């Protein structure tokens, strides 16, 4: 029972990180029908940017204000990178065959990943201890302050995003663009700005996810974007890609699944089990758990 509760806590923490990153994939896919393969590497880049802001700009301060500033500055930096990425690599290919955009996304992923390597070096770096190491022991189940912060802040961000998309005019524009871009344009929605907006939101959520990964796992490497990105991407697909609540659900499910596999089976098999779960879900529900069944247009 202890293992169960402990892995439940761990799973929720990992799951909320996956969910934050998955939102970036799913929002971009929803409007552009494009798998943004570079998103995972942006998440990794965010951790390195956060590291540099901590050492160079903040003078290694760990006060609350400094930590908030690190989060905000990293998010802004990645939002800018996201907008540039869209302008350079994706916008020219909107009318091109689908696979060309996929290859462009893979190219962007290689550029960002290896850009990180060229700037920060190929070796693992240690992410600073921004949050004090506080633990609570509930009868054998240990929960850290970092876990609570990750879980709490992720939930706040996800609820905020959900309200933004469902309740505001800009949110309505996003929803309209994801249903039908041409119709949205005819209704006077500037689809280009909507796309820029989703890259800003997706990238800054991913940036927060990247900093969480740094805080939680401590070791950050230039190529970790592939690994965490792939997991988040799987979460987005599981939930039904393009569907925002689906990404949150998928992320949480995947986090829990991973934690239980690590707790009860073996962590060396975690990737394989994750993908087997995904394949089974897709065979049973070809568009994910919350994905709509879209009839093929003729």
């Amino acid at each position, binding site marked *: 029972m202890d293992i169960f509760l402990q892995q439940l806590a761990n799973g929720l923490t990992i799951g909320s990180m996956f969910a934050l990153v998955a939102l970036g994939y799913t929002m971009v*896919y929803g409007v552009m029908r494009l*798998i943004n393969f570079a998103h995972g590497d942006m998440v990794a880049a965010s951790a390195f940017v956060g590291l540099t802001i901590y050492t160079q700009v903040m003078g290694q301060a760990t006060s609350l204000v400094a930590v908030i500033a690190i989060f905000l500055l990293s998010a802004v930096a990645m939002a800018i990178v996201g907008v540039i990425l869209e302008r*350079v*690599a994706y916008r*020219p*290919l909107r*009318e*091109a*065959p*689908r*696979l*060309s*955009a*996929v*290859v*462009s996304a*893979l*190219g*962007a*992923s*290689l*550029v*960002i*990943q*290896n*850009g990180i*390597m*060229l700037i920060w070096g*190929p070796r693992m770096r240690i992410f600073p201890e921004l949050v004090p190491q506080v633990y609570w022991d509930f009868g054998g189940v240990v929960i850290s302050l970092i876990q609570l912060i990750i879980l709490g802040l992720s939930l706040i961000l996800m609820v905020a995003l959900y309200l933004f998309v469902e309740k505001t005019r800009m949110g309505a524009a996003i929803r309209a663009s994801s249903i039908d871009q041409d119709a949205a344009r005819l209704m006077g929605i500037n689809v280009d700005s909507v796309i820029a907006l989703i890259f800003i939101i997706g990238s800054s959520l991913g940036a927060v996810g990247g900093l969480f990964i740094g805080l939680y796992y401590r070791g950050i490497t230039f190529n970790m974007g*592939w690994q965490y990105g*792939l997991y988040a*991407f*799987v979460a987005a*697909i599981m939930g039904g*890609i393009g569907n925002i609540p689906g990404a949150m659900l998928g992320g949480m499910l995947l986090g829990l699944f991973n934690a239980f596999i690590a707790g009860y089976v073996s962590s*060396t*098999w975690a*990737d*394989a089990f994750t*993908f*087997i779960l*995904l*394949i089974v879900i*897709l*065979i049973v529900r*070809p*568009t994910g758990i919350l994905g709509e069944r879209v009839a*093929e247009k*003729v």
Partner: protein
Amino acid sequence: MKKLQRFAYPAFLLVMAILPNLLDSRWQAVAITFLIFSVVALSQDIILGKSGMFNMGQALFFGLGAYTTAILNAKFGWPMLATVPLAILIPALFGILLAGPIVHLRGDYLLVTTIGFNIVFVQAVQNDLGGVTGGPNGIFGLDPMNIFGIQLANQLAVYYFAFAVLLATLWIMRNLEKSKAGRALHYLRLDQLAAESIGINTRVFKIFAFGLGAGIAGLAGTVYATQYAAVSPEAFDFIQSVLFFSIVIVGGSSIPGVFLGVFIMFVLPEIFREFATWRFFIFGFAMIAAMILRPRGIWPATFGKIPKFLIKESNHGA
């Protein structure tokens, strides 16, 4: 295009046939790598380019072939040549079995599932599934290939073995294009619904394409195992699949395009070794630039002998 087929192909093949005699052993090894990866990229082209299925797990079939050869040789003492039929059949069978339940998935979902298969394979091999895969280190110390008394002990002999496999692959691709199956795949890539409505059993042909592509990749795996006398999990990683995927799309899914792609991805880095750390950074930019400038690939494929005035430009397919 016709002129090219008549003169450029024989010339290219002639050069490739003479080439290894002019190279030292390091460059012979590079040339062999070029041949092996060309075969894998061509097999990927059958699934991705010719049939339009978003397959990003081709390294799985390549690896299955290589591991079949390695396991049969190192653990069961089969001669290398005897492993060839199984190294084709097992990946082909896996291709058919794995494709069966997933070919109906829409593009991007298919892509993720094939990534998934690739990752499951690599992890199974790393965890020494069944105690025969050698775990993270792989299997090494394989015997040299012995073809009816001729020992492929030196690089030159392995080169010609790889070259023969490439020629066989080219021959299969040429026949495929002129056959019923090739036409069926072409139609179903352009418009699945239309293909179905003119009586093409799309499911059968999709699975056929997977089986064929997987079998050829498996044979390339045997050549790989012969060349290195070893196999290890990271050679068949999902990243390799990404490279094969990109080669086909950037090349434009044509045979010269695939050769060009393999040359750029695997041979150029050998020439510019001092830029090794910059390799993927530059490739990334090149991939974006190539797609923006030529969205249909550097060397787009043409199909059959359809007169130009009958072809209407459209954005569909590809």
